[in-house]
């Protein structure tokens, strides 16, 4: 099922068609909001196949990267208290204001990398005398698994809830006017949960074409092609190129579990101001699992590291190689910002494939 979505001949024809349409357009700035799209685009060198006036930029689509320095400091404070902290591996090296989770671990803190929240809850179940806190990050793709797990989690388990929802951030980005986006490639696996509905108000408000796309090279190329076609015809819609996974209504069962456990809240994203309604917090009935309340942690917001341009990367204002310290002061073994740490981060991906992303 996958090889057909990598077919070279079809890709070439799609690129020819893209070039053809681009001739009728001034400039097309297309933003994606998913780290996995950035990976596909850079891995397959898709930018080099596009005509000069078609630009694909990455937005706030890496969950590790949009997590704020303050949230990292909260995670570190929990580990410093002697609690068992579980995290996805990508978070380990992200610098907080003074340290990282990896640094705490090196000093003897009990920080453990897990593949899923189920593994984290299992550690809690097997160690009933230990408090286990999971750093719950991720967009709508990940939030349902946190919700499902909390419905049966043991009492010594809790989460530092850092979940965020994507469409509100896209809205803020367009409203701010900082960056002019002509079309969005919408994130396939966020959309698998939320469906098409939440994107429609954006298209209505800003007249911006959007295509939900999968993660094979042809998915991305046709996503770009469909956006350019809409631009050419002056028609903005939300199209779904990834119907093999994304249904119009999303995944109702996952949405129901999410709604049972979470409610929207206002939260700051790295590089952004507070975005109203773009976070998820635990409802009152689940507050026993809220690590912030349970352990009463209060850390000051000390902003993000000096010299780091991750905020501008996440807003689509600069490319990784335009950050003055990219590959010099900031590299995967000595990262300054999260975009160089996460496998979904634009800087880490650009570094790995050694390309100008």
């Amino acid at each position, binding site marked *: 099922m996958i090889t057909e979505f990598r077919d070279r001949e079809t890709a070439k024809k799609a690129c020819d068609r893209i070039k053809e349409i681009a001739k009728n357009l001034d400039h097309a700035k297309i933003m994606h909001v998913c780290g996995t799209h950035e990976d596909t685009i850079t891995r397959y060198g898709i930018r080099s196949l596009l005509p000069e006036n078609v630009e694909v930029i990455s937005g706030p689509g890496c969950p590790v990267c949009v997590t704020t320095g303050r949230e990292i400091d909260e995670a570190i404070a929990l580990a410093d208290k002697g609690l068992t902290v579980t995290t996805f591996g990508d978070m380990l090296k992200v610098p907080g204001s003074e340290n990282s989770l990896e640094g705490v671990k090196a000093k003897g803190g009990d920080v453990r990398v897990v593949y*899923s929240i189920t593994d984290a809850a299992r550690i809690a179940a097997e160690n009933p005398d230990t408090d286990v806190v999971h750093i719950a990050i991720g967009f709508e793709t990940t939030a349902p*698994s946190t919700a499902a797990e909390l419905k049966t989690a043991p009492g010594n388990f809790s989460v530092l809830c850092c979940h965020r929802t994507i469409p509100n951030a896209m809205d803020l980005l367009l409203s701010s006017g900082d960056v002019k986006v002509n079309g969005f490639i919408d994130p396939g696996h966020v959309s698998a949960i939320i469906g098409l509905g939440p994107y429609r108000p954006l298209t209505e408000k800003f007249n911006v074409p959007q295509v939900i796309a999968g993660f094979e090279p042809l998915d991305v190329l046709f996503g770009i092609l469909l956006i350019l076609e809409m631009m050419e015809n002056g028609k903005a819609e939300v199209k779904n190129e990834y119907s093999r996974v994304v249904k119009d209504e999303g995944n109702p069962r996952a949405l129901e*579990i999410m709604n049972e456990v979470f409610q929207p809240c206002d939260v700051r994203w790295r590089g952004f101001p507070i975005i109203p309604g773009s976070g998820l917090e635990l409802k009152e009935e689940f507050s026993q699992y809220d690590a912030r309340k349970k352990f009463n942690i209060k850390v000051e917001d000390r902003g993000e590291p000096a010299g780091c341009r991750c905020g501008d990367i996440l807003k689509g204002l600069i490319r990784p190689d335009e950050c003055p310290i990219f590959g010099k002061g900031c590299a995967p073994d000595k990262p300054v910002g999260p975009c160089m740490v996460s496998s979904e981060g634009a800087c880490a991906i650009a570094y790995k494939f050694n390309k100008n992303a």
Partner: protein
Amino acid sequence: MCLAIPAKILRINGNSAEVDFGGVKREVKLDLVDAKEGDWVIVHTGYAIQTMSEEDAKETLRYFEEILKLEDDN
């Protein structure tokens, strides 16, 4: 961590299942989907988040062809 990949369900045990990621076997949770043995699912951080339809994949490929054919005809 955002990565979500397709896997085939081998065996269902209650609300979890043994799945096959192209040779690598793993246990995943099924709380979020309605799926049966033999189905393809998209798995993200240990949970199946949606089923994947082979029929729709073929449909998409046909749609791609159609778009490109229009170009050839022009």
